[in-house]
């Protein structure tokens, strides 16, 4: 068994569910084909995808979200704008995107492909959930926040605008409440100026590097909009819905943004990243 496959896929393999994935893919194709003819596109479907630099010229569309599984067909670069991302499977490293290419539904490694919702579709899909999450952060209700956390990837906390997969803390949703009740400091990355470890309890971290301003009242809230603050976030979460709460600067304080990254897993959007894109020296 490959050591590179991710935990939920690993579990699926152990349970002999690969065949199920294949059957499911075929059934999904049939159902979706009918729905596409009869109904408008679901708001959560993502319109158009882009190849990453790692993608080969022809991107393999696999029958299951497992490296080495059967190739259903190859996707040419010309087809990418018409691809529809209909689901995703989270993974601790990368992930898998379920896409429809022409009449075929299959899986593509997120290393090869990035699919994003338009700002309008992203807002329509997630405005309510984002509002709930920012409200929970405001009152530090981590118990309820945990219910929104990505079940596979957990919740990654980035103290600055550059996501650092090695240094940032990632806490599973199931451990979030306990982690934030603990008085034991954790290391949350490195200070932007001294380079020394940011060693704080979760509660203090939330005060200083998450909700240090009233982001719920931010005058500018954007969904999947490109900005200096979200550029690095897109690299870390290429197929996410990225919600930015931007607070302007003033005479004494620089501008700051709180950026939430939501990623899809089995048809539902979950919170997988909180990025505090404040001023750094």
């Amino acid at each position, binding site marked *: 068994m490959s050591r590179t496959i991710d935990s939920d896929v690993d579990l699926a393999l152990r349970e002999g569910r690969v065949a199920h994935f294949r059957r499911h893919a075929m059934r999904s194709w049939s159902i979706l084909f009918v729905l596409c003819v009869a109904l408008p596109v679901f708001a959560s479907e993502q319109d158009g995808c882009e190849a990453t630099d790692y993608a080969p010229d022809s991107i393999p569309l696999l029958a299951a979200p497992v490296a080495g599984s059967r190739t259903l067909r190859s996707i040419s670069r010309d087809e990418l704008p018409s691809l529809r991302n209909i689901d995703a499977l989270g993974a601790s490293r990368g992930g898998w995107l379920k896409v429809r290419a022409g009449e075929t539904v299959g899986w593509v490694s997120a290393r090869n492909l990035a699919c994003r919702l338009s700002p309008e579709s992203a807002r329509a899909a997630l405005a309510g959930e984002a509002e709930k999450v920012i409200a929970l952060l405001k009152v530090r209700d981590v118990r309820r926040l945990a219910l929104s956390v990505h079940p596979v990837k957990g919740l990654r906390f980035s103290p*600055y605008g550059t996501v650092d*997969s*090695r*240094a940032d803390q990632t806490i599973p949703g199931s451990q979030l409440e306990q982690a934030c009740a603990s008085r034991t400091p954790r290391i949350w990355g490195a200070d932007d*100026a001294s*380079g020394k470890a940011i060693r704080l309890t979760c509660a203090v971290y939330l005060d200083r590097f998450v909700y240090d301003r009233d982001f719920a009242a931010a005058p500018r809230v954007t969904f999947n909009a490109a900005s*200096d603050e979200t550029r690095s976030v897109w690299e870390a979460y290429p197929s996410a819905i990225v919600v930015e709460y931007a607070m302007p600067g003033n*005479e004494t304080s620089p501008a700051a943004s709180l950026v939430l990254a939501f990623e899809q897993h089995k048809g539902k959007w979950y919170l997988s990243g909180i990025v505090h894109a404040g*001023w750094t*020296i």
Partner: protein
Amino acid sequence: MQIKLRNKLHIHDNIGGAAIEFTSLATGTVALTLGTNNVGLAPIDLKTLPPGNYTCQITAARTFADPVGPSLVNAGPPPDRVYRPVTLNVAVSAGGVTSATPTNAQFANVAIGPTQVTVDIQPVWMKSLTNSARGQSIEMIVVHHTACPIGPAVNTFLVEKGPHYMIDVDGQIVKWVQDSRSAAHAGVARWAGHSDINARSIGIEIVHASGTYPASQYASLLDLLTRIRTAFPGIDARSIVGHSDVGTNATGWLGRKSGDPGALFEWQRLEARSLGMLRAFGPPAANIYAGFFQAVQTGSLRRGDSDKHHRFGGATLAAITGAPVKALQSDLAAIGYSVGTPDGDFGERTHHAVVALQEHFFAGGRGHKSPDGRVDFITAGLIKSLVP
């Protein structure tokens, strides 16, 4: 009537203990001598200052008249503040002070009210609370921009973190940390194989939020760089870099400080003075990087390329049998960029190093494209020209 002295860049700082001397232009004699109290106030007795014209010399408890650089606060316990000495041309009528104009407009702002003349004086030294012992010799300079106006920058530099020097939009320089101490400015950073960049460097912040950098800032920066290099000959001219050239994440990938000092900063002004990374003259050889650009003239080495798998420019090219990616990584490392051990795989770390280099050398209107991490022939030639 009273006179009030404040810090021009941080008006909550009252300048106590300053000497103020009015000299009559008519007689050449000292008419009035004052001293400010601990809230920066000094009463003016108009009976001893009859109507007429005066020069008013203001001397804070610690002043410095020379250009700001290593000679300022270079030894001993650092004071909290050092200011420019200020001279005002003052006109007094029966009702009080009617005008007060600094002889050097950059050294003071003056506001005349019904009962108070407020003079905000340019500081040259403001002590940062954040610094530490170096542990290394000074061998490089890191240039930053503040990415915000001066107000938030000053508030931060005073208490949290900050550089050794700051250059305001009018070219005035303020020093914050003694050169012999390490300032908290570079954060996690790597250059030329070193990761203790704060210990090895002097940090300079240029106050800049948007738009082009004013000529006054370049002039001050060039003079300051020269003074620093004179004081610390161990700083090679090539070791004057931007924060974007050195700021990495924990894994060593550059890009953490992308945009600092940014696309509008004109490194060519430094290069014209032989400061910073300098290019060798002449075109690159056509066969650089294992002849990739002879095989694919308009191609670009890019993320995902691999010597081992003969993948170059995003496609399999079995005809190229050399190791262009490893050669590229070796060149980037030789220049100083953080690429790790050259391994022939054009991964994220190499991609971010190329972007950082492009940011530096495409800035100031010199780029033929936006920094994208792809090594086309022009970028390849640029890299080759920078290898020492």
